[in-house]
């Protein structure tokens, strides 16, 4: 077997297994696949939706790359994302009405980043100065963040003119500028630039090298005279800010509002993607683009064929497991 065939084997296996699952629940896997690809990629509307979806996913990828490179596990991106989205959705329409569109967009993005960073600050400080495991604290803070966002929407930030609890809505015309007459918004190039910039920062800069030494071994980092607690705090704070920015971009670019009980849980999807790309920004962008297609496609297929949209997570999980199984044994 050639190397290339070996590399593709896990994907073939994953397709096969997922096909079997679909057959078992009485769905034609070929029809399902066709719907997913058509609605996610091979239709003008689908490709535009996928590209818009890619924007927050790319920013989350950048957030995770920053954290993982430093050997830190920010698993609280979903809470940081949703809380930031909620703050942006609640404030941007007010800023827009008072100071105009530019203030709404810039202020919304800045507030989103700040909110994400603020929600990461407690686990970051506990990790940096008290040595508390950030895997647990960021995850717990994520649940709190999601609940707090819902509570805020229902109790404080609720738009009085709607029946379903949701925040104020930023009018479509006031959202992030659309590109070339499509529905794809400015958030996409912004996010792409940030992912690639993050890649260069981590691989080509002095600060990136400091973070990599920390990720390699905190003992080595200390020995090299680096301020390990401050570096730890900064990396987690930056990671939170980028996750928050993702929330801001998604609201200002696509949704315009946050409804109570909305939680897209993009973080869960992007963590494996970033690890699959081995924290490389170029690969991460590619894998995230595929994820966006899958995620948009499966959402359509859910309506059409009754397979829950979570099936994209099943597919991603099966791909990862078969990749793991196909890994050469460690000697």
């Amino acid at each position, binding site marked *: 077997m050639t190397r290339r065939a070996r590399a593709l084997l896990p994907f073939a296996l994953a397709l096969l297994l997922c096909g079997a699952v679909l057959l078992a629940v009485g769905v034609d896997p070929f029809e399902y696949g066709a719907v997913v690809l058509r609605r996610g990629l091979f239709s003008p509307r689908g490709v535009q939706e996928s590209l818009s979806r890619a924007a927050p996913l790319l920013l989350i990828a950048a957030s995770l790359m920053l954290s993982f490179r430093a050997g830190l596990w920010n698993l609280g991106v979903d809470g940081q994302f949703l809380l930031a989205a909620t703050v942006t959705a609640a404030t941007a329409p007010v800023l827009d009405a008072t100071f105009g569109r530019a203030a709404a967009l810039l202020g919304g993005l800045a507030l989103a980043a700040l909110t994400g960073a603020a929600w990461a600050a407690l686990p970051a400080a506990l990790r940096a100065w008290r040595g508390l495991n950030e895997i647990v604290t960021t995850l717990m803070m994520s649940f709190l963040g999601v609940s707090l966002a819902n509570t805020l929407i229902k109790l404080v930030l609720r738009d009085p003119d709607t029946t379903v609890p949701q925040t104020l809505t930023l009018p479509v015309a006031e959202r992030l500028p659309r590109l070339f007459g499509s529905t794809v918004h400015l958030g996409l190039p912004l996010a792409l630039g940030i992912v690639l910039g993050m890649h260069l920062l981590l691989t*080509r800069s002095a600060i990136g*090298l400091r973070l990599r030494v920390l990720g*390699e*071994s905190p*003992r*080595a980092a*200390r020995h*090299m*005279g680096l301020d390990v607690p401050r570096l730890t705090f900064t990396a987690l704070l930056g990671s939170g800010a980028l996750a928050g920015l993702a929330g801001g971009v998604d609201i200002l670019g696509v949704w315009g509002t946050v409804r109570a009980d909305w939680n897209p849980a993009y973080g869960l999807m992007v963590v494996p993607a970033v690890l699959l790309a081995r924290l490389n920004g170029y690969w991460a962008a590619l894998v995230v683009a595929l994820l966006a297609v899958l995620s948009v496609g499966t959402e359509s297929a859910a309506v059409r064929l009754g397979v829950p949209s979570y099936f994209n997570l099943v597919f991603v999980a099966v791909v990862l497991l078969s990749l793991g199984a196909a890994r050469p044994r460690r000697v």
Partner: protein
Amino acid sequence: MTGPVLELRGVEKRFAGVVACGGISLALHPGEIHALLGENGAGKSTLVSLLAGMQTPDAGEIEVGGKRFAGLTPAQALASGIGVARQHPLLVPTQTVAENLLLGGAGWRRPRRDRAGEDFRHTGDGFGFTLSPHALAGSLTPAEQTQVEIVRALWRGWRVLVLDEPTSALSHDASARVLRRLRDLRDLRESGRGILLITHRLDEALDIAGRITVLRRGVVSGTLGPEELAGGGRAELRQMIRSMMFGDTAAPSPTPLSQGEGAFCSPSPCGIGLGGGVAPTLELAALHAPGLHGISLTIAPGEILGIAGIDGNGQTALAEAIAGLLPATSGSVALDGTPVTSLPAAARHRQGIRYLSDDRMHEGSAGALPLALNLLLKRIGAPPFWRAGVQQDAAITTHAQAAIDGFDIRAPHPWAPIATLSGGNIQKALLSRELDGAPRLIVWHKPCVGLDALAAAQVQARIRSAAVQGVASLLISADLDELFALAHRIAVLDRGQIAGVIDNGPGARAAVAALMTQ
């Protein structure tokens, strides 16, 4: 007379080809306290691991309680009645003292915390321990943890008690009290029990032991039975044991130093033994830090000050306190007369204080990062290798190539991950990093540990030539031969304090040996 409680026959253990125990035979007789003496690397700790079942011998056999084993598992060691109180306690930090006693009991039985706690109090009282059995093990001081280890070793009904360096954590008085108490237990003889006391303190062994075995480089280098111990005078016995431990201490050092010898002194007067005519490069004054209790010493330009001592007596703390990694609680560190006590490590590095770690794989280098970057990890961001924070590959490659050529580092490529290099080549890379620029003082922490003879010789040559160029050196080593071959003076570190400083030369070996075994 009944046979021994514990007998080792030709026990061997090697680690990656290095002999830790090279065929050790010894017998522990009932009713006896048997002291096992030896310096660093003599094989004492390995022997303890073999008895506790943490390691399996490569050859030989262990006979305990009439049963023969090619190797013990921890469960077999416990079942055979071998109780081990380790030098570095192995307690579960999140559990209480009583719960730590219960570990290893039958899984299906309800743990009797109350009874364990009462037993602990009862046994502990006899030794003068005043520790609560409900305290969390992780909150205990090293001395208290050692107390728990001792009680735990006794708790299960023991036949053989192994006490590994009890004085390293306990005070001298406390450990003497424990040993006297154990000796005076009326039934030590009748019940067929024996105690193996591992120590490097001669007087402790002479005070308490009925039999002494000395290990040197993995083999038994001498034994003193009850008759010999009773017959000889104290001074005479001490001298005998020291020569068993350290080789012939009366002989001069392998490479005696003479004051004017070019290989050891820079052309300018280097101030050693000149009554302090030259200002010291490094001066520590009453330095206190966690693990260090009032260290005062000076090192002249071009001087190599050796630090001898049993591992764990503050060597790492001393190195880190000088490098700026461990903040001083009081006292001062001065370089060339200027205090640097409040400067962090990076600033001290810039001023010329260098520190070569004893763990080159996990602390001294970042394995997955390229060799070229590892050479600059203590100067991240500095020009010309970074400009406005951006990495300059050309300058970094040139710098790495110079190190590779100058230090004969065998690497496939300057940008190969440093972990792909051999241990000797990694060490050469780290030497080049610490010698780069204008070093004033270098702390060499076990620079040759784990290296083969050729690589070690190259490293030692570098240390010498740095000294010739006027760099002050602090050489921490567990290898006395290395210290006597390189250092001008040797200080002995004992429980975070300097026990004494000896000028290298004829008779230095005996003097250092005497300080180390106090």
